[in-house]
């Protein structure tokens, strides 16, 4: 160290500054070497982890561990970014401490030159050297394109990089460098290293260098170091054993890795999988509070240990001015001084001093240990808050103690520097860092040959703190921090608000808010402000008791500066003040919003889980059940379910309670009654829809038959069927239309069979009515087609009887296009199941019946595509009159039909119940219901959808054999029949399935499903808004609980959609988890309402996100990537861990909301 000091022999400021830098560099020097080697390790480990590791390198445990880890690919692509980074790291190591003169002519590009040099003595190097030269010669253009991001590294680019990378060490010998970047680690792409790596010679070359380090390197270079050198070369053995390929395999093009690989990688690189959110809460929270008040500050606040430690290094946001390890600090409540790392950071707006206990610095790899207590000890002090720096020194060079005193007079814990001039070094760095906006007062003195020294001040009697003792025993100094940005009048002007100031920079605002907070919280603000500043001639009121004489003089001299300056300051003051005020206001509002918004998400009181982790076992359940079957202590049931889930064997019993189907207070008898009535209701409803389904089925069948007929006729005629222009139609009708879509112009209104045809029609309405006397007469009018359907029931016998009595089907069709052609169709059918062949037979009859039904013709109207269904004359239904009115009026009446239908439905039900048959399959044949076409239509549509989804629902799960799928379908159809207005939506089946699996009883499952849907139906696109609300809540939660993740998500606007959560909320995570886990999660969600939060699903979702937060952040995932990631991860989550995390998150938010106000005030002081 001394030898560097010797070079400094002048007093000018430049030199002083530089001297400090040198000083610092020495401090950093060893650290830097460590960093370099660590870098190489890291890169190697990444390569090793991603790719196949052929041979072991035996460097250490970590390598072995990695080798045991994932083996995903056999080849490493040459252009892989991992390779590039590795090369960069190696380069950095090699260029450090290289002997300049050893390079001779090549010194412009140090390591490449080194290679050429080594090549003379070493065969392997010669080979590479030759290749490098070949490439350079054959491709001279490359030199000019150094900055392009071309994949291939050129010599010239490597040159630039290398000189950067080697800046650190050589600059020690050159005074010209005043760069602030002390630890610049570049990641260049390096030609020769690359080549050597691909040729598998790199390790040998490095080894050679290490062996002969004395020749090429300075004594203190990394390569020359006995430990580091050998580590370096052995580290590279591994990568050199790999195969590198330029051949692209398909998966290399798309190098977004599958979710698996991401998780795997994460495990490898982080060494822990536990989501950090619990541990981090307090830190996170603090950070959030700062978010508005001081942006720069926020950034300094760590999100995790790892990030925190990284933030201590040089980075883009803050310049590291000083760093020293093993600095002792005596935090409050601790008896022994603790060693830690002290660092001084320069951010754009302020100077920050940090001290971190060694436990946090060293241990960040090992997260198992709870280090949270140490966070309480860590210091993070912004120098804008500091007014005085007290220094106590024991002897000239025995180390010393620094105490920082804040504006409010509070002392920060003493910082003790070890001996060796560190105190002075620190102070000089501090002084430099304060420039240009502030300074130490009195300034440090510079002394020839020694650099900075403490100022020699005259002894002063009175002030106790600024006493100077020239004896070597004890020397105390008090430095004042003078901040030129501050003003004495600051507070006095506080009432003023200048609206113009709005346009100013956010940064100012931020820092001012901080200050405003401080001043408002300070009880004796004038005192504190007094000490803040001076220079503007505002010294008058100042009581100088704490200053030495020279201080006063010094300041007084400056006070002569002009009036104009004062005016400017005034203006600025006002602006700053108003900005501060508004900023503060906005911040408060934000907090309030968050509080009110999110407080609704958790219960006021969270019941704790003491002793409930065993869950609801059979024993507990039985012990809680009284003799009459009522259940006591329902809170206990909820609590146990929430914290420990339910034993599988009793789920069947408990679930209906949890879902609210049974009341806990109900007796066993009451429940039996409920079961019975549920069952009856269910069966009744089912009878209804089964009847309708029969109609629908029949219709489909006919359509199918007609289809086939048509197809065959088409094929025989050989004439291309005119295409019906396709219309946006509803599915079920479409099916039919297709069949009948052959258009025959000029056909008479009455057409045999189903063929009618119509050109394009825009709209169609269909009405459908049937008489009570069943075989329903249906009439349907599609714009394009006329259809006549018979309703049939499977029960043929009955039908045949009835059908002979009366059956009329009529169809009327209106063509919108020309409004001319309309048709009426009548068809009479004998039996439902007749195939195509029968149709011909029935034609005659049809014609007849058409004639009879002259009424129908009145139904034809011009422009309305309407379908009117009439019943035949014998009908006694009250609907008949309406129907026969025809035209618009009848249509409108029919449209209102659904209301009437209820009544009909009731009577229908009554009938059914009277003559209840256990077999509900053929209800429709003997008793009729009257349903509007709309209803039939809608139901038919839904049934088709249900069928499609039921077939596809969990068909690989053991439970769902054909019988059980049928049950599922029944439940689904029943529900839809009851909720035709909502209709079936995809996903509903998924919700029924787990219920059915557990309850295994149709009617109870149905009832429970209805309960479940009470909460979940709003999520379906039917209403749509609930989902947006969930997304908004998710967004707020992430914002509050994980600001770092939020930052990433918010960066991309798309994120606000949180679409990746869509399926989660829609199906309550059913698709994300395996069945066993679904059970647990569901019951937890249900019981959570009574334990902690009615919105537990949000927390579970949040926990899912948090579980993978590091992966998401680490890979900077975008909107689409997250979707893909979670889709890939479906059914592979560790549900129990996620649940635990979710429960913790509830507690976190709860405590956050409770403490918010108090915390706010705490952090601001």
């Amino acid at each position, binding site marked *: 160290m001394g030898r560097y000091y010797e070079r400094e022999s002048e007093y000018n400021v430049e030199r002083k500054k530089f001297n400090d830098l040198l000083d610092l560099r020495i401090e950093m020097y060893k650290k830097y070497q460590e960093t370099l080697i660590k870098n190489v390790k890291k890169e190697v480990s990444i390569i090793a982890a991603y790719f196949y590791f052929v041979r072991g390198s035996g460097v250490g445990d970590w390598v072995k561990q990695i080798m045991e880890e994932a083996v995903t690919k056999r080849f490493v692509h040459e252009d892989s970014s991992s390779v590039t980074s590795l090369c960069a790291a190696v380069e950095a190591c090699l260029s450090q401490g290289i002997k300049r003169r050893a390079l001779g002519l090549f010194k412009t590009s140090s390591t490449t030159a080194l290679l050429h040099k080594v090549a003379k003595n070493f065969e392997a190097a010669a080979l590479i050297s030759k290749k490098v030269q070949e490439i350079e010669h054959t491709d001279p253009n490359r030199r000019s394109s150094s900055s392009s991001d071309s994949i*291939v590294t050129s010599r010239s680019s490597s040159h630039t990089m290398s000189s950067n990378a080697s800046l650190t060490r050589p600059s020690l010998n050159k005074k010209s460098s005043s760069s602030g970047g002390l630890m610049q680690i570049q990641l260049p792409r390096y030609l020769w290293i690359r080549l050597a790596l691909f040729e598998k010679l790199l390790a040998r070359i490095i080894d050679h260098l290490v062996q002969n380090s004395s020749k090429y390197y300075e004594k203190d270079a990394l390569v020359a170091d006995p430990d580091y050198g050998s580590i370096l070369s052995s580290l590279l053995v591994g990568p050199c054993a790999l195969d590198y390929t330029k051949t692209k395999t398909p998966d290399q093009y798309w190098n977004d890795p599958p979710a698996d690989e991401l998780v795997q990688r994460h495990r490898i690189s982080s060494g822990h999988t536990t989501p950090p959110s619990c541990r981090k809460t307090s830190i996170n929270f603090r950070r959030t509070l700062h978010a508005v008040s001081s942006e720069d500050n926020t950034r300094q606040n760590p999100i995790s240990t790892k990030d925190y430690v990284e933030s201590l290094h040089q980075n883009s946001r803050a310049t590291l001015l000083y760093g020293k390890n093993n600095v002792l600090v005596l935090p409050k409540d601790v008896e022994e001084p603790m060693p830690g790392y002290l660092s001084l950071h320069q951010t754009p707006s302020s100077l920050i001093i940090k001290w971190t206990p060694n436990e946090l610095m060293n241990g960040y790899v090992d997260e198992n240990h709870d280090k949270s207590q140490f966070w309480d000890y860590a210091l993070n002090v912004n120098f804008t808050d500091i007014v005085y720096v007290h220094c106590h020194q024991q002897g000239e060079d025995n180390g010393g103690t620094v105490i920082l005193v804040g504006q409010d007079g509070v002392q920060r814990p003493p910082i003790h520097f070890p001996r060796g001039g560190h105190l002075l070094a620190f102070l000089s760095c501090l002084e430099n860092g304060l420039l240009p906006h502030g300074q130490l007062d009195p300034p440090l003195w510079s002394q020839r040959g020694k650099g900075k020294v403490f100022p020699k001040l005259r002894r002063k009697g009175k002030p106790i703190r600024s006493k100077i003792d020239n004896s070597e025993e004890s020397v105390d100094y008090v430095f004042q921090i003078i901040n030129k940005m501050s003003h004495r009048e600051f507070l006095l002007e506080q009432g003023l608000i200048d609206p113009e100031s709005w346009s100013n920079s956010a940064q100012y605002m931020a820092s001012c808010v901080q200050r405003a907070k401080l001043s408002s919280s300070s009880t004796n603000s004038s005192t504190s402000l007094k000490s803040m500043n001076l220079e503007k001639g505002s010294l008058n009121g100042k009581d100088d008791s704490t200053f030495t004489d020279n201080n006063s003089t010094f300041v007084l001299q400056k006070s002569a500066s002009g009036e104009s300056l004062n005016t400017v300051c005034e203006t600025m003051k006002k602006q700053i003040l108003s900005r501060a005020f508004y900023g503060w206001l906005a911040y408060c509002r934000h907090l309030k919003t968050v509080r009110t918004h999110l407080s609704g998400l958790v219960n006021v009181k969270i019941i704790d889980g003491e002793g409930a982790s065993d869950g609801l076992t059979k024993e507990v359940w039985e012990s809680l059940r009284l003799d009459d079957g009522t259940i006591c202590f329902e809170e206990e049931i909820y609590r146990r379910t929430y914290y420990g889930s339910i034993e599988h064997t009793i789920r069947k019993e408990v679930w209906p309670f949890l879902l609210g189907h049974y009341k806990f207070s109900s007796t066993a008898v009451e429940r039996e009654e409920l079961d019975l009535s549920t069952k009856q209701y269910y069966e009744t409803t089912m009878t209804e829809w089964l009847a309708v389904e029969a109609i629908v089925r029949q219709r489909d069948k006919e359509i199918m038959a007609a289809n086939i007929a048509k197809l065959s006729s088409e094929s025989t005629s050989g004439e291309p069927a005119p295409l019906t222009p396709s219309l946006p139609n509803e599915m079920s009708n479409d099916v039919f239309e297709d069949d009948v879509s052959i258009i025959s112009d000029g056909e008479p209104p009455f057409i045999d069979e189903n063929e009618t045809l119509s050109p394009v029609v825009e709209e169609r309405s269909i009405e459908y009515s049937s008489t009570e006397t069943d075989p329903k007469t249906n009439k349907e009018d599609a714009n394009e087609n006329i259809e006549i359907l018979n309703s049939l029931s499977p029960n043929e016998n009955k039908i045949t009887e009835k059908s002979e009595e009366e059956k009329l089907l009529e169809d009327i069709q209106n063509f919108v296009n020309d409004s001319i052609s309309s048709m009426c169709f009548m068809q009479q059918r004998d039996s439902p199941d007749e195939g195509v062949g029968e149709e011909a037979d029935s034609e005659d009859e049809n014609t007849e019946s058409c004639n009879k039904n002259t009424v129908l013709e009145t139904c034809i109207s011009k422009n309305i595509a309407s379908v009117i269904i009439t019943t035949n004359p014998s009908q006694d239904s009250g609907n008949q009159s309406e129907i026969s009115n025809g035209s618009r009026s009848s249509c409108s009446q029919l449209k209102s039909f659904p209301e009437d239908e209820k009544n009909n439905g009731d009577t229908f039900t009554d009938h059914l119940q009277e003559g209840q048959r256990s077999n509900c399959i053929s209800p429709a044949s003997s008793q009729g219901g009257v349903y509007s076409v709309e209803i039939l239509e809608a139901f038919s549509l839904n049934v088709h959808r249900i069928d499609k989804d039921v077939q596809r629902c969990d068909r690989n799960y053991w439970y769902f054999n054909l019988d059980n799928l049928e049950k599922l379908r029944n439940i689904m159809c029943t529900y839809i029949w009851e909720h035709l207005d909502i209709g079936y939506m995809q996903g509903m089946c998924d919700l029924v399935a787990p219920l059915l699996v557990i309850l295994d009883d149709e009617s109870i499952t149905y009832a429970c499903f209805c309960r479940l849907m009470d909460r979940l139906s709003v999520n379906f696109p039917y209403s749509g808004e609930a989902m947006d609300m969930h997304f908004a809540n998710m967004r707020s939660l992430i914002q509050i609980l994980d600001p770092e993740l939020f930052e990433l998500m918010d960066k991309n606007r798309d994120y606000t959609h949180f679409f990746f959560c869509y399926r989660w909320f829609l199906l309550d995570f059913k698709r994300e988890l395996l069945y066993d886990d679904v059970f647990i999660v569901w019951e937890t969600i249900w019981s959570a309402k009574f334990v902690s939060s009615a919105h537990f699903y949000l927390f579970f979702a949040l926990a899912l996100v948090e579980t993978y937060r590091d992966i998401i952040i680490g890979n900077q995932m975008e909107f689409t990537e997250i979707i893909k990631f979670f889709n890939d991860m479906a059914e592979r989550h560790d549900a129990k861990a996620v649940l635990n995390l979710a429960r913790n998150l509830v507690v976190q938010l709860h405590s956050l909301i409770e403490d918010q106000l108090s915390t706010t005030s705490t952090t601001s002081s």
Partner: protein
Amino acid sequence: MSTKKKVLLKVIILGDSGVGKTSLMNQYVNKKFSGGYKATIGADFLTKDVMVDDRIVTMQIWDTAGQERFQSLGVAFYRGADCCVLVFDVSLPSTFKSLDSWRDEFLVQASPRDPENFPFVVLGNKIDLENRTIQSKRAQQWCQNKNNIPYFETSAKEAINVEQAFQTIAKNALAQESDQDIYNEFPDQIKLPGDNKLNNSDAGCSC
């Protein structure tokens, strides 16, 4: 993450529920058919690298929910699409009928600059089934009327024509993509010629 710029083609698959969108996508990307797919909820996508005219491009194939009600949510996915695949089930005429509305819906939501020439491809799926009701002629005619949309008859189950269909999809998507940026807000545009050059020089150098 990536070391070079990639051409990313975004392809959206639309069609009624149950026509086999998920199956087609998986058959093409993973060469597998499973009888176990569930109804798609929300959206999912798979990616695959394909060689088109000697260029490697990455196809990002979006599978969507078939129920039209869910489509309003998918708007975010439509944006930036380079090609839209319309799928119907040859055994279910209704699914064929819906093609029109799917196409219109897409054009409205994605609002490409030149809707007339936006590349669609129609796939008639499930030709392995016996009860086929939509004949090729009919489908072809529909496609012709819509500005000559390419039409393929496929079977995801038996991997018939799937590869060919998607090859065409990729090709058309790429043509569309390189034409110009069809969406105003299309992010970082990729210049194809530059990319080519890069590839060439890459080949000439050993690193």
